[in-house]
């Protein structure tokens, strides 16, 4: 069946090696006769998208109806909620604790609360222009990890250093502990001793000679 002169604009010449015994000239005439073949409407894969004879392509994933989820029409009654912006407070806390943790090793990285707030607000401003919204759950988890790192990181580091020094036979430094020390409770001032009593006590102490 070489030399198939199929007049369809989209037919492939490489498909001309057909052995089906079909008369291509007659069949292509039939195909071009109109918008119907054998009583069936025709669709043309070569037609540009949007034209009546072009097959329609369903873009994207299956609809909610196909997935058994609430459909768009069903959710029309309730106004669509705008994507929640990033919680500035949460991000601020995360930034603050992350920088506190980093400051253990790099003191310059430390941020104060005001700087954290400014940074978080700027970040929220930028993210408001993007559709992707940070899940508050993720923010909370990152915050937890940051705080946990801030609390446990230095302790683990100090413990490891102490063990290393003990192994090396050197006494640990007194100021090795990174655990913040609570300020000592103000003890009541010791009563001022009477100098005369002190001297009397010293005199009354028996000496070895007698």
């Amino acid at each position, binding site marked *: 069946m070489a030399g*198939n002169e*199929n007049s*369809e604009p*989209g*037919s*492939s*010449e*490489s*498909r001309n*090696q*057909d*052995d*089906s015994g*079909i*008369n*291509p000239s*007659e*069949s*292509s*005439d*039939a*195909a071009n006769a109109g918008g*119907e*073949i*054998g009583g*069936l*409407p*025709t*669709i*043309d*894969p*070569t037609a540009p998208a949007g034209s009546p004879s072009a*097959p*329609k*392509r*369903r*873009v*994207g*994933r*299956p609809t909610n109806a*196909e997935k058994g989820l609430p459909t768009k029409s069903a959710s029309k009654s309730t106004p669509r909620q705008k994507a929640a912006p990033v919680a500035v407070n949460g991000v601020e806390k995360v930034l603050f604790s992350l920088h506190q943790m980093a400051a253990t090793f790099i003191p310059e990285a430390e941020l104060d609360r005001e700087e954290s707030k400014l940074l978080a607000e700027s970040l929220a401003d930028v993210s408001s222009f*993007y559709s*992707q919204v940070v899940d508050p759950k993720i923010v909370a988890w990152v915050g937890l990890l940051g705080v946990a790192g801030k609390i446990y990181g230095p302790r683990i580091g100090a413990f490891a250093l102490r063990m290393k020094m003990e192994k090396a036979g050197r006494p640990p430094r007194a100021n090795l502990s990174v655990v913040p020390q609570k300020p000592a409770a103000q003890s009541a001032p010791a009563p001022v001793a009477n100098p005369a009593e002190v001297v009397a006590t010293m005199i009354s102490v028996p000496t070895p000679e007698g």
Partner: protein
Amino acid sequence: MYLPNESQSILIIGKNGSGKSYAAVWHLAQKPLGEFPWVIINHKREKLIDSIPGAQFVDLDFTPKKPGVYVYHPLPDFDDDAVTALLWRIYQRENIGVYIDEGYMINPRDPALNALYTQGRSKHIPLITLSQRPSRISRFAISEAAFYQVFYLTDKNDRARISEFIPGGIEEYMKGKPGEARLMPDFHSIYYDVGRNEIAMMRPVPQEADILDIFEKKLKKPKRGVLHRLGFL
């Protein structure tokens, strides 16, 4: 008329040389290839499939994770177990399209294959199945298809089997006395949308070069910087 969406399966049948491979590759080209992976099981090493630009040729123990077109070349019978294992991994992973170039090359009773046919829709595993002989493929491949595209079939039994699933049957379009033109022209196919109960005659798909061009555009990876990757641009 609509094309299958990203969870619907299509069965394309027709005799050798009827144009079904071109139609199937064209259907694949219409898919959003940048969204999830498509696996092609190409037992007979169809040249058109192997010339898809951007396709990756992989071993049977590889499971694709990133979007793209992945071509497997299993040996008939010898690699049957590996194909079954691959299909089970796809079943577990979900969101992977499967293109089976010759449906009858896989055992019709293969449990993984039948699981994909029966549960593929809910797992977002669309299938494109081709076969020359509908009477030799899994019954689920026929019964669970959301679309049928039927090219010329020589065997009467095959016509009868597929006619069970298409209202009005296909016999009258394929009849023709010797020397006379058939009602269904060359390279045309009967296209049936089960969900909408719509039937049409599909004209031949575009030429090979045009089909491959679609892949070229879809699978071409643009160079992207850090800002693109982070979603800022």
